């Protein structure tokens, strides 16, 4: 409340002096305020609160992905205008604003030109419903601070208020009902937001350029003033900024006098497509003037997001629990994978994998899993739904011939509209990409299909996507967990293939999986969610002693049969060992950990070999 107040007045304060010092002070003030405990939760979030409930020119936050970066623009940092009441010349500040007030004296020598850049931001693609819902609930507390409170939201605030402040991860504990109930609640709160999207339906020509099909939520044009170089495409950010939805923006955009086109060069620069992409109506794509942005390590609302003291406290408290949570999660996954404990172990390792560094072109830490031998008939779909319940970001790409041939996976620059047309592979870091190869049937891939498959292969092998800039390609590194489900071995490369060996064959698969899912309490699921996100962020090292042991081991293994273990196998085993240790909450590799890693890899390999001999024609 206090901050919101300040924000409304900080700009007029600048009128008196054009000293840039105040700008730094303003930023300092906001950063300081936001650092204060809990304060960031007072700010309404554009992700959750429908746009028309938010007051223009107020401070809002937005959790988003930088989808495109537009060209820098020059604006009037300070301009001179005539005050209509006093008739005196006044200097005004143009920072954090889209539109000037009153008539501007363009010839004034006091005009200061400054530079800013616009980012086109979209909500994090593939954000799981549960992540949205929880962050909405925690944000609901803020709504009473504005006068635009819909009664329904007030109720949800009262309902969840007591247990949320202290233990966000436990907030669902009182409700022991199965998860399905949460959905109905979400729909209720979503009702007003569907109103905001209504205008977008009537002006459906406006493509909001979301990476994934079927996404919704506000896209936003974020004006960035500071630290332009520190932002990168596909960064996930939590942006705090001033909301600008001035209807004038729309009017200025729409109003076009064709007769003036010939004479005025500035108007003819832009094609209508470009106009539409860069100046969409503010009611649909609000403008956000960034005060401060925080890069997000993860978008799991159950975890403290900033690396502060309370996070380390949170981590250390959770580490104690880690082993037990792991056991529970493993049991759960084993059930899901039809009683296959080894596959469950690998799936768990896959879910916490993360590209933690790159050595020249080699991404380290990636762990693409190929689950082969999946039962057909919607099993994979169900499996995805379960994965989706566990990770904050995910997307299932059904690799049918049609989608492979028609879908745009790789983002492409559209030079006519001057924007980057998004593709399904433009994902935030640590998104789980679920490739369902069981959907693939025999047939002809056309050239775009081949390109898509190549792009997926590149993504898996090098963790990079080559964006198509028409005249050249540009490489963007990414960090995406790819899980491939297939019948036989996948046609895509993978780090590790596990043939599924079902121990149970339930007559009705759907029912079976639903029952397993229902049997989990929400509190339990929440624990899993925290576990998976947390294990990924832990540090890891190998002591010299263990290094030596691993080396000896490798030499020994090669001595027996040099063909059996290659450098590639060692690569994989080191990754498995790393993930295995982390999954147990151990931050160093122990001898024991290494032996375990070797052991499960051996089991897996014997299983693949077995599979190979079983149906010898497999490539």
């Amino acid at each position, binding site marked *: 409340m206090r901050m919101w107040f300040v924000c409304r007045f900080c700009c007029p304060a600048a009128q008196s002096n054009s000293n840039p010092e105040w700008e730094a002070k303003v930023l300092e003030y906001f950063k300081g305020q936001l650092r204060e405990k809990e304060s960031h939760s007072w700010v309404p979030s554009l992700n959750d609160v429908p746009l028309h409930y938010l007051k223009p020119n107020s401070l809002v936050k937005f959790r988003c992905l930088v989808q495109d970066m537009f060209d820098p623009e020059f604006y009037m940092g300070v301009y001179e205008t005539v005050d209509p009441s006093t008739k005196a010349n006044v200097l005004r500040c143009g920072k954090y604003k889209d539109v000037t007030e009153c008539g501007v004296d363009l010839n004034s*020598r006091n005009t200061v030109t400054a530079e800013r850049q616009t980012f086109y931001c979209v909500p994090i693609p593939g954000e799981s419903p549960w992540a949205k819902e929880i962050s909405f609930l925690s944000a609901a507390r803020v709504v009473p601070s504005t006068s635009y409170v819909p009664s329904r939201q007030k109720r949800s605030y009262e309902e969840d208020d007591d247990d949320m402040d202290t233990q966000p991860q436990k907030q669902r504990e009182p409700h022991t009902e199965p998860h399905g109930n949460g959905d109905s609640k979400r729909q209720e709160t979503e009702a007003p937001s569907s109103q905001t999207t209504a205008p977008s339906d009537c002006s459906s020509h406006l493509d909001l350029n979301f990476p994934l099909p079927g996404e919704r939520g506000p896209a936003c044009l974020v004006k960035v003033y500071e630290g332009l170089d520190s932002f990168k495409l596909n960064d996930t950010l939590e942006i705090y900024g001033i909301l600008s939805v001035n209807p004038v923006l729309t009017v200025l955009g729409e109003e076009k006098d064709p007769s003036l086109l010939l004479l005025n060069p500035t108007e003819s620069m832009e094609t209508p497509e470009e106009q539409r992409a860069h100046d969409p109506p503010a009611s649909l794509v609000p403008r956000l003037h960034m005060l401060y942005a925080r890069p997000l390590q993860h978008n799991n609302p159950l975890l403290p997001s900033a690396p502060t003291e309370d996070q380390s406290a949170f981590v250390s408290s959770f580490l104690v629990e880690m082993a037990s949570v792991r056991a529970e999660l493993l049991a759960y996954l084993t059930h899901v994978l039809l009683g296959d404990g080894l596959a469950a172990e690998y799936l768990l390792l896959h879910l916490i994998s993360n590209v933690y560094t790159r050595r020249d072109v080699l991404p380290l830490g990636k762990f693409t899993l190929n689950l082969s031998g999946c039962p057909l008939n919607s099993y994979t779909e169900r499996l995805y739904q379960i994965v989706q319940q566990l990770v904050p970001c995910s997307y299932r790409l059904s690799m049918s011939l049609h989608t492979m041939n028609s879908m745009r996976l790789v983002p492409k620059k559209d030079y006519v509209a001057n924007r980057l047309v998004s593709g399904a592979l433009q994902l935030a870091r640590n998104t789980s990409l679920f490739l369902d190869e069981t959907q693939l049937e025999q047939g002809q891939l056309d050239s775009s299909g081949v390109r898509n498959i190549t792009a997926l292969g590149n993504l898996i092998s090098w963790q990079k996507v080559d964006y198509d800039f028409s005249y050249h390609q540009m490489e963007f590194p990414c960090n995406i967990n790819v899980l491939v489900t297939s019948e036989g071995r996948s046609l895509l490369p993978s780090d590790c293939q596990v043939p599924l060996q079902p121990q149970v064959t339930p007559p009705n698969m759907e029912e079976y999986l639903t029952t397993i899912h229902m049997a989990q309490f929400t509190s339990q699921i929440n624990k899993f969610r925290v576990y998976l996100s947390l294990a990924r962020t832990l540090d890891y090292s190998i002591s010299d002693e263990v290094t030596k042991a691993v080396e000896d081991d490798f030499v020994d293994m090669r001595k027996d049969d040099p063909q059996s273990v290659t450098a590639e196998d060692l690569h994989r085993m080191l990754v498995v060992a790393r993930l295995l240790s982390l999954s147990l909450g151990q931050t160093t590799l122990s001898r024991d950990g290494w032996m375990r890693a070797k052991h499960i890899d051996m089991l897996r390999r014997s299983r693949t070999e077995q599979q190979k001999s079983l149906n010898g024609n497999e490539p």
Partner: protein
Amino acid sequence: MSSPTSTPGRRKRNRDDIPATPKSTRRRGQDSSNGDLRAMPTSPATDIASPAVHDTSLFSSPRRSVLPSEVDMSSPLMYGTPSSRVEARQRPDLGSIRKAPQVDLHSEPPSADGAVASEQALGQKLVIWGTDVNVGTCKEKFQRFLQRFIDPTSNEDENAGLDLNEPLYMQKLEEISVVGEPVLNVNCSHVQSFDADLYRQLISYPQEVIPTFDMAVNELFFERFPDSILEHQIQVRPYNALKTRNMRSLNPEDIDQMITISGMVIRTSQLIPEMQEAFFQCQVCAFSTCVEVDRGRIAEPAVCRNCNTTHSLALIHNRSAFSDKQMIKVQESPDDMPAGQTPHTTIVYAHNDLVDKVQPGDRINITGIYRAVPMRENPRQSNVKSVYKTHIDVIHFRKTDEKRLHGLDEDSDQKLFTEERVQILKELASKPDVYDRLSSALAPSIYEHEDIKKGILLQLFGGTRKDFSQTGRGNFRAEVNILLCGDPGTSKSQLLQYVFNLVPRGQYTSGKGSSAVGLTAYVMKDPETKQLVLQTGALVLSDNGICCIDEFDKMSDSTRSVLHEVMEQQTLSIAKAGIICQLNARTSVLAAANPVESQWNPKKTTIENIQLPHTLLSRFDLIFLMLDPQDEAYDRRLAHHLVALYYQSEEQIEEEFLDMAVLKDYIAYARTYINPRLNEEASQALIEAYVDMRKIGSGRGMVSAYPRQLESLIRLAEAHAKVRFSDKVETIDVEEAKRLHREALKQSATDPRTGFVDISIITTGMSATARKRKEEVAQALKKMIQSKGKTPAMKYQQLFDDLRGQSEAAITKDMFEEALRALADEDYLTVTGKTVRLL
């Protein structure tokens, strides 16, 4: 300083106007100022009229002008009054659309105007309002520059054929008088080295200084060549402003300054006719008047000054003056941008004869004036968007890849190295172990394979380009081609990826996914213009770079065959859809191939293992095998290396290895500046090496080296000299080339049956022993047939069985057939179906 003078003199669109002498120019200027059809502009103009300004009062710039104050006001060189600065032709690129000072960068104290008036008495010299440019001095300086500037070290292609010891620009003026193209391109770095102050003025106030330059040139030109007839007056087009920036670093301070940026054209608009002067005629009395278009708007005269009728003037379109204009969108070149961001684009306006000079896809350097225009003010709206639109008015285009289709383009590639950088590189080069250092810095994540890395390092540097076209042999290939073959999973692809990421013009393709068309070039019909467009493929795109081809063995034969030309002649010939041309493809090829049987079979030769045509194989300078060595010490080192990879922190990694950026610069520097030549000893050593190689084989009745191998040796030796930053190829270079060549040979051209190095495996696809064996079998067969007496026809199968029974060595069917074929070649017998007939 964004308060430009608007030159009030009238500008006419008159391309066909031929000014005879500079005198006439001046007279014209005076005419126009006397024929006062228009009111003088308001405040700026009054300032021009009394432009004696003491510069320090106006400018916060720390540079105080050192212009001599004894300039005589009455001197004919004095061009302080604006009316005389009129050009006889229009330069919309300099902003004939007059601009009011909207964008003020340095907030000047509002008292400046007062100061001007009060200090008028103090300053004796005249400067253009808002600048510190004194027209007379400026002109004088530029004329001096034109008359005196000599650049003996120039190697620019523009100056080809000029005498470097004579004043450069005077020769160019002479050229203009001959050719009649009235454009003088001036390299700004020349101006800078001649007169730094003039250069600063040019950069800061191009809108004022360039017309002054024009004037100076024309005066000089018509003095010297009074009889020449030009289409219009000479225009000065400066280029290569040293304040060259990439697009990303443009900021508000650059507005209205001259800049040079590089980028790629992504879109060009249609031609836009832009009105320069509106012609109005009174409907009542037919009195006509002209109004200059001001910032895109025409101030329509409300009253006819002749008959005083109001609102009687009508615009006559076909008597108004228009100029050509084109909007071009330029995107920053991929090399300039930081990783992880999207490229910026800038709008560029080309005027008059610069229209249609560039096409989408061209890489160009643009010199122009950076402009910012506020969004159109709407009289009905009090609120306006507080954003400016920026663009560049182009003065000069220079295509950087213009020469790629013919001849060298070394200079356009020139990367600017700072002094310190060069120092670092030279320091590195002087270290005795630089070769080992660099090779270990290459792909540090890939373990060992030292010789292969060394080979690739030499490939990155390349040999010296030699031109024998005068003796009829054309260009010699300077690029080194390398083939890696070996077991799957020996990080071949990773090595390729690394190289692809390292070199600026690298292309990465996979044999499986590429077609001949994709590699070479194809003709496409542009859907809009219906024009045939040549689209270049990977090989042409990697001209002067490295083309990495993965899964070389999976490539179809037809695709591979296009490589023949590229890998030796370094050109690509295309004849399709009415386009016949030869493109340069001076690319090094780095290919990786898997063995046919997926695992390398040590009992077979290279050819047999990878099944590539030997014609292609012989074009590779080095063929390396990447095999699993399978010994304990190696395993241990490998394990250590890999484990370290997984736990070392970033900093440790940095310490251990050379920075990739340094390596990049090192290679770029060496490729650009170092052109080693063979010295006497080295040539001798090469000859010896070659003779030795041939000797090895001749002892056993086979040839182990061909001239192609000698060429390879020379290239490798040159590349090694480049690594040392040495201008001479010395014996040590030859030694290393020999060693590497031998290593590669040992690995790939060893005859598995004898264990000897045998180059003929690569050149003919068959080892000498195999050839000998074939002959023996044929002889044995012949003998056997002869021993059978006079049987004119024999059964094929029986003959085969007989031969097998007779011979002590196992004879396969293949060998038997080969023997038959050999005998058939001798016209001894013929084979028809299942019978063999003697002749």
